[in-house]
């Protein structure tokens, strides 16, 4: 039956995460953006919340609650707090969800316990490549079988790269098909160059060069079995769409509050139709976009193909986030252009959604 209300448990999770985002992420958004680094305390606090662990299999100490819809609710709230920090906080899922879904028992045993332990552990996934026409289902990074090894060659970018990162999944084309491989950060032939981007500056990312990186056959996600990486891509798009909604909502709420408080010509600027209607459109598009993200996530949870829905959702979400963030800067006027206020950061972050892929997973 058509319904748009989360379950009570989901509502509880959402509200908890909203509190966390409001108390822990939002105050650190600007300093972390300026310093271009994550905040260890936040990573620890998030780990204690068990946001990632909760979605992992109970057999490996997780909560066994893997749900793309729940994941979208969490992602929106965290991104509403701050996108860069949200992606950092959720980064363990980049390592965990592929293995939880498609990993061999050996791989699960190797990776999952470390992610549900007492200490936060970083995770990462390398999918995007530094090309304007990058095609996520036809990456140019290649994996060639050589005896009982795989040899990886290619380049990646937008790869979350925290100091303590030890393993990551690298997505490559194996005989034309998508495959992922577990790579040590200190693998021979792997070179990581720190990146600096317009946005998501709080999240340390790297550009990777892989030249003849040799891996054991067991490094392949699922081992001999095939993981459905297209489905994984759809999970990433639903999650990113939810993040975009969170960014848009944050910018919209700032604009709404500012418009009611800021006076010009003797009245709040919110009493001007040009501002008021802009805010009305923001609110409407944000709600519509959220529903698209939820629909894609719901299909994923139903085990249905969500390729199309995830594409519609992320396409719409990147347009909405950009338009709303830009509109928020406009509402703030001169104050929207200076870094004492957050709208300009939301604009920089929002623009990234047109190029992000699999920067977070649900």
């Amino acid at each position: 039956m058509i319904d748009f209300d989360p379950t009570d448990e989901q509502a509880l999770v959402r509200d908890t995460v909203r509190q966390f985002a409001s108390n822990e992420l939002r105050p650190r958004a600007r300093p972390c953006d300026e310093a271009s680094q994550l905040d260890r305390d936040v990573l620890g606090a998030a780990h204690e919340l068990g946001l990632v662990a909760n979605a992992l299999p109970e057999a490996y100490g997780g909560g066994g609650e893997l749900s793309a819809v729940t994941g979208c609710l969490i992602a929106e709230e965290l991104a509403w707090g701050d996108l860069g920090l949200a992606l950092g906080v959720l980064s363990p899922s980049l390592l965990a969800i592929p293995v939880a879904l498609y990993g061999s028992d050996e791989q699960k045993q190797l990776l999952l316990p470390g992610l549900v332990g007492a200490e936060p552990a970083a995770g990462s996934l390398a999918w995007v490549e530094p090309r304007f026409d990058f095609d996520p289902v036809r990456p140019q990074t290649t994996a060639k079988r050589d005896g009982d090894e795989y040899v990886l060659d290619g380049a990646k970018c937008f790869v979350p790269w925290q100091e303590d990162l030890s393993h990551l999944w690298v997505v490559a084309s194996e005989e034309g098909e998508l495959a992922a491989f577990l790579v040590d950060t200190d693998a021979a032939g792997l070179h990581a160059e720190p990146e600096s981007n317009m946005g998501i500056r709080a999240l340390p990312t790297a550009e990777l060069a892989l030249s003849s990186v040799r891996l054991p056959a067991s490094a392949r996600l699922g081992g001999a079995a095939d993981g459905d990486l297209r489905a994984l891509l759809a999970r990433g798009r639903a999650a990113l769409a939810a993040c975009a909604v969170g960014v848009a909502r944050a910018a919209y709420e700032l604009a709404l509050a500012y418009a009611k408080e800021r006076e010009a010509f003797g009245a709040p600027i919110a009493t001007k139709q040009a501002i008021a209607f802009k805010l009305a459109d923001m609110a409407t598009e944000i709600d519509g976009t959220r529903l698209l993200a939820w629909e894609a996530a719901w299909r994923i949870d139903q085990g249905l193909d969500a390729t199309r829905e995830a594409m519609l959702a992320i396409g719409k979400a990147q347009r909405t986030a950009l338009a709303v963030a830009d509109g928020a800067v406009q509402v703030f006027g001169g104050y929207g252009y200076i870094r004492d206020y957050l709208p300009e950061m939301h604009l920089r972050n929002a623009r990234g959604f047109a190029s992000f892929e699999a920067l977070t997973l649900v």
Partner: protein
Amino acid sequence: MGIDFQPTSNTEISRAHFNRIAHEQMRPISRKYDDQEHDLPTEWVDFWWNEGRKGAPVDVSQPTDGFVTVCIQAEELCFGDAGLYLRMPTPALGGSAVSAAGTNEQREEFLSAFRGSGHPIWGAMAITESSAGSDSAAIQATADFDEASREWVLNGTKIFCTAGEGASQVEGGFVVVWATVDKSAGRGGIKSFVVPARTPGMKLVGVEHKLGIRASDTATLVFEDCRVPESNLLGRRDVKKRDPKQSGDKGFKGAMATFDASRPIVAAMAVGVGRAALDFLKEELGRQGVTIRYDAPPRELTAIERDVIEMEAELQAARLLTWRAAKMISSGAPNSLEASMAKAKAGLAVTQITQKAVELLGPVGYSNKLLVEKWMRDAKINDIYEGTQQINQLIIARRILDYPSAMLR
């Protein structure tokens, strides 16, 4: 329950039922009644009266999606033809007003005939006046009470009255007329009255020639000393000087409430027209060998592919906003904000989608040989009636800003 995008089986039955009607009964005569503006689409009216109004063969032992199911019915029928949909013999908005604001006696008196075995009849609502478009407080039509005959005497002119010809001219139908019983009271003085078809003093002076939805009779009605019994007033008679939105006047509030209920339906109608154009576009492109790649990177898409994907996203966003507003009605949640969001979004989205569909089909899209150009003309009404785009933005803005209407006009 939890977030769920799966309609009930009854809704699917209903969708399939009305989709078949759209294809079999409506599409074949779409062009005919667009060309023959104002002709009564007899075959359609009779079909609806004899068959259509029986509704879909749902399993009454099973649940439906409530108001969402109603929206899906509207989407399917307007996927068929929006003009014919508005010409169906039903109580329409007039019925909603009677249901929302009327007494059981009034419901029985005015609505039973629509379930009866007589000839097809229509209901309508008459609000708009030439000097009062979006501004209901500016209504000039008057209703005076004649103590002697215990009748209400209506005077004034109403325009843009959908289904106004059928409702005013065909015995058994009725028009719900908004008029003021006390101009000094502003909104507080506005009441609604049921005027049965053919009541002396209610004159049909004309039907509009329109851009689209030409099968729909958009009428101008003049009321000259038009008398109806005291019992035809919907809601309370006494006048609240305060804005009745805050008062307990079931009449005005009821009438207003009908808009919160009707906006999702209008939005669903819009979605139906937009879907007609988008589905046809995709089919036609398919016939021309163009398929949409949903997994291609944005920078490798053709202009057409990206347009279609964006059109699909905007249409689905409008549909989901519509379902959300409808769902809230079923669960009894106040949905004025969400209803206006759905209406504003759907009206604009399908205006742009249908305009784009004509463009993408090139010369053939512009030709009357196809229905796409008609769908573009039909779609535009959704940006205008039941509150223009701007009026809905105003309602949304007031809600999100928590401003009284005085602060944002």
